[in-house]
């Protein structure tokens, strides 16, 4: 039994967010006025403080709360990404929510609760902790998807996400119960010990259902159906949040559970991951070609990117995990940058949502056009932008482990996906200008600047990300 102060010190970010959410809820409820007043500023501050606490020099690995929760370098890296995703989404949301008149104080509170769930999910070290974290995250996400409740599309998005999400939770629980029935324990390390050298068909079925549930949260094919509809229907800052933070958490727990609990069934999970990764890359590349709505396009793009990222998991090596971590960091920067750009362009009273809206952007707003073009090039993976290195670091370990064909197909599909990214660049630079855009707020511009530095100059000084990812990957093994 560890002393309580030790456990509390290692759960500090979760405690800050959960406690902060309760305080803000009280503050909002007792004020009972219109709008969210100071709540979202405070929520942003709390996320920032939680982010800072990750840098506290605590010793490497701590298993606390009776083995349910692990605090290690891997967890801190992914928590940092998830917190950044939530923080930036909240920054981006303020102007949009006020304009759409949906700036109730519950929104930042729900984002805080969802982020708490993500952190718990990232740190889960047994199946119960995993499920509770996942549900806390998902429940809050269902609500924020439908937050614009008078909008039919947002309500539809929320309902669809809820029904399919409940189904996926069911599958995850079914898989967990099969695994528990076999191993007699819910702890990841206990499962690994039980499986060691003794693979039962029950475990394999359990693994399949478990990964199906997690793939739903990562929106990987064949569990991606909800993604385009939900991304299109939800308010844009919520879409930005969906595309960033929850993916970090889902990817983190997938890596953790596969590496910690299932090293004994490597060929089995490899098959599943290869299958999902190939299909996701293919669907992300081909299905996005016909899209005209930018949010739908980003949805397919995110499906494709999850496929690319999971290529790094296939070899199951430390190098591969490091690749996935770098990929997630870069994907986060690019996605948040792209959504910041979407949220900073308004035509009249309406936010830009379709590709034709962007026509001739280069002549009306040169710097924005340059930024968008750069983000698209980076998403497509063109050197020397960050997106290229992301793909390099996941394909390299796959090739080292002998998965030549997977890497080759991946590169070919990445060429296909370049088509639709470049089409946006073409519309921006070569089409006749549409209407002019209205001016933007400072914080959105700030996000744009940070994202563009990250994307453009990653190759100049990649060391911080690379070192952090290397240490994080090492702590998982």
């Amino acid at each position, binding site marked *: 039994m560890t002393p309580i102060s030790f456990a509390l010190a290692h759960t500090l970010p979760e405690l800050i967010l959960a406690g902060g959410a309760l305080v803000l809820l009280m503050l909002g409820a007792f004020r009972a006025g219109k709008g969210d007043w100071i709540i979202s500023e405070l929520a942003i501050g709390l996320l920032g403080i939680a982010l800072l606490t990750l840098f506290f020099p605590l010793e490497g690995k701590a298993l606390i709360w009776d083995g349910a*929760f692990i605090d290690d370098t891997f967890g801190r890296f992914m928590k940092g990404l998830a917190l950044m995703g939530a923080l930036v989404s909240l920054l981006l949301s303020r102007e949009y929510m006020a304009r759409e008149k949906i700036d109730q104080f519950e929104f930042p509170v729900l984002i805080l609760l969802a982020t708490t769930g993500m952190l718990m999910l990232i740190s889960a070290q047994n199946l119960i902790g995993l499920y509770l974290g996942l549900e806390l995250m998902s429940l809050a996400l269902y609500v924020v998807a439908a937050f614009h409740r008078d909008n039919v599309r947002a309500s539809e998005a929320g309902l669809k996400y809820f029904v399919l999400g409940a189904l996926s939770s069911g599958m995850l629980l079914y898989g967990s119960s099969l695994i528990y029935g076999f191993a007699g324990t819910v702890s990841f390390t206990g499962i690994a010990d039980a499986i060691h050298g003794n693979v039962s068909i029950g475990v394999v079925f359990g693994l399949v259902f478990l990964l199906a549930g997690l793939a739903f949260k990562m929106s990987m094919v064949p569990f991606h159906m909800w993604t385009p509809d939900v991304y299109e229907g939800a308010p844009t800052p919520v879409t930005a949040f969906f595309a960033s933070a929850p993916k970090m958490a889902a990817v983190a727990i997938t890596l953790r559970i596969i590496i910690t609990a299932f090293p004994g069934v490597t060929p089995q999970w490899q098959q599943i991951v290869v299958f999902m990764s190939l299909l996701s890359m293919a669907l992300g590349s081909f299905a996005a070609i016909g899209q005209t709505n930018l949010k739908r396009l980003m949805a397919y793009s995110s499906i494709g990117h999850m496929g690319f990222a999971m290529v790094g998991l296939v070899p199951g090596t430390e190098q591969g995990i490091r690749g996935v971590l770098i990929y997630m960091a870069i994907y986060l920067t690019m996605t948040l940058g792209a959504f910041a750009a979407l949220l900073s362009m308004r035509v009249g009273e309406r936010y830009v949502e379709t590709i034709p809206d962007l026509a001739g952007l280069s002549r009306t707003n040169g710097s924005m056009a340059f930024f968008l073009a750069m983000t698209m090039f980076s998403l497509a993976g063109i050197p020397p932008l960050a997106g290229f290195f992301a793909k390099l670091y996941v394909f390299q370990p796959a090739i080292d482990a002998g998965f030549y064909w997977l890497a080759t197909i991946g590169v070919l599909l990445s060429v296909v996906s370049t088509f639709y990214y470049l089409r946006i660049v073409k519309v921006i630079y070569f089409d006749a200008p549409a209407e002019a855009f209205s001016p933007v707020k400072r914080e959105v511009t700030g996000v744009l600047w940070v994202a563009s530095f990250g994307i453009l100059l990653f190759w100049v000084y990649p060391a911080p990300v690379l070192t952090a990812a290397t240490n994080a990957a090492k702590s998982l093994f």
Partner: protein
Amino acid sequence: MNAAAAFFYLFSTVMIGSAFMVIAARNPVHSVLFLILAFVNASGLFMLLGAEFLAMILVIVYVGAVAVLFLFVVMMLDVDFAELKQGFLQYLPVGALIGAAVLIELVLVVGAWTMAPAAIGGAGSPTPPDVSNTLAIGRVLYTKYVYFFQAAGLVLLTAMIGAIVLTLRHKPDVKRQVIADQNARDKSDVQLKKVPSRAGV
């Protein structure tokens, strides 16, 4: 066959039967009543396992609160369930196919079932002999499992916030009773007007 086994088969048969009737019953009120029957039988099964606390909680929480609320919702909402169920059967072939696939998987799993050797000793944590199982649950719930307990609390809080955010509407034109205003009113606030006949105010 002893009494415990007889009761086990009784409870399980009735439970499976009523669970099926929940989805098969035409009248939604009957569905909810069958659901209550299923809960009661499940609590009987818990009783057979010697888990009295869980059995009673199931009756109090699920039968007493949740199912009765369901019943209210079903009765108060004017939803045409017969119409909702139309077209339900057209998905039957696909559903049956998936169901059959899952069933085959289950048979495969159960047929080839082996527990991990290490698991057999560790599985199941018996109630300590000197205490009741309510006390045994209480001893671990707030100590060993405090993290899960708090996390589950947060999940419920989120669900509650979500339900309020999505459904509560403040209607401005609804007149509410404000007792303080009523009590503070005196004669000077009251205006008396002579209303001419057939002219209105």
